């Protein structure tokens, strides 16, 4: 026991007090902020081609006064026909000429608009042009139909669902609770995925390193292989937990920073390119959002979710790490081969992530419920579902199944490990791995 502790201590301290660990732990949250900023910037710059477009309107469909050029594409409204504009195009004053004409009847809804240009229009630009022209036609129709602005607005019908419990007294569950569940569940599922995968790989690399630099024989003349394996898995696990804790503290901070940076800058531009209905809904959501989300966060069963999440974290990590240790011991120095053998297990984890993402949208679908009991998926899927108040027996049963699976795999892994770690040269086949598992 004392030796196990020594091994855990070494595995932990050599990693946690390494410069790269400290840097990574601090930089990743910053990196996420930087990433958010970058994505926000890219999103906010609705990049279109920088071209001058003439809208040729010989029949005077549009009143000059009502036309405003947009920021991204430079439009000029003109009464001249395309033939007259051709020379200006040649001079390079315009790169494109769009010909419009009033529709022959107001019932018509599909229009083919001629665009004369030698430029190749990219998707963003075509979409922008289409929406601009569409607005012109819409305004023209509104005017011709003699509709007032208030009449138009009267056509809208915004719906919000107001849920009332019938037999259960849980009136506090509002729309915001779903949003909070989605965010919280998504974060937990993703964290689980990232940690299980990276920590598992760390265990594998460390096992391979010990085997390759041959310290393994020195260590094994002092401790049992199972002690070394367990010490390594537990030690690296604590490293993961440490990082997780630091990030859990940092993440909200970074979230707030990104939020304040972009709530002001990002919204107006993105929103303006959306249609008015969504725009309004978003504004409403934003008004309600923050306060109700904050109040929802107060209602979350933290006392249940946090320990459960940590338990699933430990279980999921342990399961994957044990497999990684076994594979690392069997393959030796061949990184490529280890990746190959890892592939099926990695795929299971990735699949778990997708199931978890599905569980955000439909936490109580039968797919989500069933997959949250399956050991390789449950750490991700169940921790996502935790935020949606599943019946308490479900996480507990899933946890029991996970723990039993862990014990089973740890047992097999230990058998592969103690043989594999001392084998050099010849590569072990799957058949041999099977033999190691069940030999004396």
């Amino acid at each position, binding site marked *: 026991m004392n030796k196990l502790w*020594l091994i855990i201590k070494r595995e932990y301290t*050599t990693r946690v007090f390494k410069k790269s660990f400290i840097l990574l732990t601090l930089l990743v949250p910053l990196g996420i902020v930087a990433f958010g900023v970058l994505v926000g910037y890219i999103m906010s710059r609705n990049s279109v081609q920088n071209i001058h477009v003439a809208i040729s309107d010989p029949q005077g469909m549009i009143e000059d006064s009502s036309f405003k050029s947009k920021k991204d594409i430079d439009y000029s409204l003109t009464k001249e026909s395309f033939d007259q504009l051709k020379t200006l195009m040649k001079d390079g004053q315009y790169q494109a000429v769009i010909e419009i004409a009033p529709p022959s009847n107001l019932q018509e809804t599909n229009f083919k608009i001629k665009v004369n240009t030698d430029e190749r229009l990219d998707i963003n630009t075509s979409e922008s042009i289409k929406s601009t022209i569409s607005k012109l036609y819409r305004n023209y129709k509104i005017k011709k139909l003699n509709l007032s602005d208030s009449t138009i607005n009267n056509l809208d019908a915004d719906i919000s669902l107001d849920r009332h419990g019938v037999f259960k007294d849980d009136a506090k569950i509002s729309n915001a609770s779903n949003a909070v569940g989605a965010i919280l569940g998504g974060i937990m599922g993703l964290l689980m995925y990232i940690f299980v995968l990276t920590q598992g790989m760390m265990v594998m690399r460390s096992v391979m390193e*010990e085997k390759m630099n041959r310290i393994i024989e020195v*260590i094994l003349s002092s401790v049992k292989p199972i002690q070394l394996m367990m010490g390594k898995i537990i030690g690296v696990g604590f490293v993961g937990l440490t990082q997780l804790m630091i990030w859990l503290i940092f993440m909200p901070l970074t979230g707030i920073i990104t939020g304040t940076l972009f709530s002001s800058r990002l919204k107006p531009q993105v929103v303006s390119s959306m249609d008015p209905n969504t725009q309004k809904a978003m504004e409403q959501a934003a008004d309600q959002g923050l306060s109700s989300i904050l109040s929802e966060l107060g209602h979350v069963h933290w006392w249940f979710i946090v320990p459960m999440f940590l338990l699933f974290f430990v279980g999921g990590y342990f399961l994957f790490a044990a497999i990684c240790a076994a594979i690392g011991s069997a393959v030796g120095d061949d990184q490529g081969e280890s990746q190959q053998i890892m592939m099926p297990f990695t795929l299971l984890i990735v699949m778990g992530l997708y199931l978890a993402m599905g569980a955000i949208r439909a936490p109580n679908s039968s797919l989500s419920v069933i997959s949250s009991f399956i050991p390789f998926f449950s750490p991700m899927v169940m921790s996502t579902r935790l935020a949606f108040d599943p019946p308490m027996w479900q996480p507990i049963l899933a946890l029991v199944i996970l723990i039993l699976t862990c014990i089973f795999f740890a047992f097999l892994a230990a058998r592969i490990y103690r043989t594999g770690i001392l084998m050099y040269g010849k590569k072990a086949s799957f058949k041999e791995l099977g033999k190691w598992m069940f030999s004396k």
Partner: protein
Amino acid sequence: MSILTLDHVCKTYQSQKAVDDVSFSVPRACIYGMLGPNGAGKTTTIRMITGITHPDSGDVFINGNRTNDTIPQEIGYMPEERGLYKKMPVWDHLMYLAQLKGLDESTARKELKEWIERLEMKSWYTKKVEELSKGMTQKAQFIATVIHKPEILILDEPFSGLDPISTNMIKDEITRLKNEGTTIIFSTHRMEQVEEICERMVLINKGRNVLDGNVEEIRKAHRQHLFELVTEDELPRSFPSQFNEVSRNGRKVQFKPDTTTHASDLLKYFLDQNLHVNSFQEIFPSINDIFIQTVENSNRS
């Protein structure tokens, strides 16, 4: 009583017999050589002694206690393929290994300080392992092996890659430890080292011990009745046929006389011929010759 005894030990890996019935015993406080060609089963044998693997059948006794399924703490083992954690500072590393061997922290610190002094490591014990030269690493590894004062020290090719100065330093330490009562088991291919250092030896081939005993006695038992003379004067063109000249080199000549001829007959002939003899000795076969001969014999049978 022997400190270490192997009694009909076998170990099979999958279908391959790595060790097939090895038995020998090592007396206390002696330097014991373990020889054998590559793949003979030396490493597996050592691993079973150290408890890294366990025998399928047969027993290992240390101080009379059966240690088949345990990791005996009275052993210090330095494997042929050395390895230390590259990123760890020497001091931390040795402290870790010492504690794994069961030393408490303060004893480990005290012992380690002494060793660092003795092996002149003061200037580099804070460095990381990856920054060390090969000789330095070897010293560190040696300390890791002996820091817990093992009764049995198992060294697998301890001098490979060492310069003569470091070799001597380690040799002196081995002798010192032996004089303090440590039993040292030496696994090597370097036969001259066995002749030089070891008192007893065992020769393992194809998973079996084919020869064991006192090194000098083994050499005597394998003597070929071969004599060498060095003279002051020119050698005559030929010698009596029963002398059976084997080789000559300047004024040095070797004979392998038939069984009826005694050594003194050789000497008498030279004196009768008025040849001044500078030296006269029987040539014992080297352990190298014995090794090759025994291995070939056991492979044939």
